[in-house]
């Protein structure tokens, strides 16, 4: 298999509760996949396992051919998986620029002592970081707010900054956890354009969790549906929309 991400019989139990039950799916290197399901289906738990926040009870997660199970979140980020959070997690005391800057910490050439003396490679490396940060801010039209406190931006902009920050880590796989949550229809439309553009321009695979069906059906090529931790359907959007198991999970069993 040449897939970028392969999730194999992934299981997570919290005490007696099975949050994710033997889930298998995969995302190719150019995929834009969706992970949907009713509330409490275990979607964010899957993200947390892929990014190392939780250690799975059983099963395997392979990224780029090697297992990432057991790695710490920062190590997983260094293998080129980046994520955003359901509740935006920007650093509140830092500016937009600095929020993007911290995504570059892992790519620095210099260490602690150079940082304290600003000697040697320091200047060249800092200039590179600043240039790259401004470049990516320009791409997303965020330079005008570069020195504003990130949490003072409009909600939609904060979501964008979070996506930009994840991209600044130079990922091959981007995990978006409910990127459209709390957005109005116009912002949602813009977000869909943004996600498509990001995928083209940055050449990343995207896996997204989303409740908004318009967004999911509008941009995802392939959708995995979870209910009570188990995969109940998988396929292209049209097939998912017609799948009786999916309709049942969302709307309840039809009575005759």
């Amino acid at each position: 298999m040449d897939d970028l991400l392969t999730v194999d019989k992934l299981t997570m139990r919290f005490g007696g509760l099975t949050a994710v039950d033997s889930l298998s799916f995969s995302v190719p290197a150019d995929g834009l996949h969706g992970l949907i399901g009713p509330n409490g289906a275990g979607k964010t738990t899957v993200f947390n396992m892929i990014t190392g926040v939780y250690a799975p009870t059983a099963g395997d997660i392979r990224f780029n051919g090697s297992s990432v199970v057991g790695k710490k979140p920062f190590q997983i980020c260094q293998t080129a998986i980046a994520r955003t959070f359901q509740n935006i997690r920007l650093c509140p005391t830092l500016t937009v620029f600095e929020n993007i800057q911290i995504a570059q910490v892992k790519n620095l050439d210099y260490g602690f002592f150079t940082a304290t003396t600003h000697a040697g490679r320091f200047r060249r490396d800092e200039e590179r970081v600043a240039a790259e940060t401004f470049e990516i801010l320009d791409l997303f039209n965020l330079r005008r707010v570069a020195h504003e406190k990130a949490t003072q931006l409009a909600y939609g902009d904060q979501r964008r900054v979070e996506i930009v920050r994840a991209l600044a880590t130079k990922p091959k796989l981007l995990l978006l956890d409910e990127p459209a949550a709390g957005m109005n229809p116009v912002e949602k439309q813009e977000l869909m354009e943004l996600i498509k553009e990001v995928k083209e321009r940055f050449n990343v695979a995207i896996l997204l969790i989303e409740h908004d069906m318009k967004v999911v059906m509008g941009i995802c090529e392939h959708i995995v549906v979870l209910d009570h931790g188990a995969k109940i359907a998988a396929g292209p959007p049209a097939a998912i929309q017609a799948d009786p198991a999916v309709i049942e999970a969302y709307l309840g069993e039809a009575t005759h």
Partner: protein
Amino acid sequence: MLRKYWKAATLLGVVLVSLLISQVEGSFNQYIFQIVIYAGINIILAVSLNLINGHTGQFSLGHAGFMAIGAYTAAVLTRDVVGSWGMWIGFPVALIGGGLMAAVAGVVVGIPSLRLRGDYLAIVTLGFGEIIRVIIQNLDFVGGARGFAAIPKLTDFFWVFAIVGLVMWSLSNLVKSTYGKGFLAVRDDEIAAEAMGINTTRYKVTAFVTGAFFAGLAGGLYAHYVTYITPTQFSFILSIEHVMMVIVGGMGSNVGVAFAAVLLTVLKELLKLVPDLLWFLPEWLLRILENRMLLFSILLVVIMILRPQGLFGEGDWVRRWWRKLTGRGRKAEATA
């Protein structure tokens, strides 16, 4: 060219001026001079604690413990090992030895900080400080509870303020660099920082080790200034004073914290004069005012109400004023 090196040049200037002043320090009023030295030592302690508490957001109450380790290690080194090497070689070796011992202790305290946060970490570090004090009390070769006497008086204006310059320079450099932004990210949102590829574990331990190292240097300076140290001098009240300097100055602002260190050191001395200056107040009120810790606490409460972010905290007036004056700052950065 000048702009590129102005910081290093400032450091060099501070060192040279300190050296000059140290040559004529006998001609100053010795009481005032002593306050100046204490202020310098407190700057080192407060700014180094600011890296742990202010920038990295790990609430430590153990700075007196690190200081004690540095003080006793340096004193022992001077007595037993480097005493005959002279001021220009022996003393720095003793100071650095003290700093390194404190840094080792920083690793020991840093490790629980990986699992604990907030109040729990504060309690562990508080316990650490007390353990250090009790251990020293029971070590006979450093005098135990009787104290360590007859330490040569090697600390002078030069050593104190050269190290003040060093700590301000290196720690300001650190938090301004991209590398240093990692500390701020750990403070702001640990989960996000970790998800962005920052090794939060390493950052926390680094903060503790660096802070402890400078606290150890300050301890060595202190020991070689007062020439007589006892374990009780390094009680947890001292740690509280350091934390107060950080809070009053504004968590995360090195300049503010240094300012607060000077302010509180001077204030502590001025409060001794209160009964003389305010002689017209009734006797019972003067009795209360004589209690310095009481006034300190009131000051802290007032600052917390009026300026919860500290004197030089977020959106500080000095930086705004400076920007206006020089035209540097926001605009220059945005077009850089």
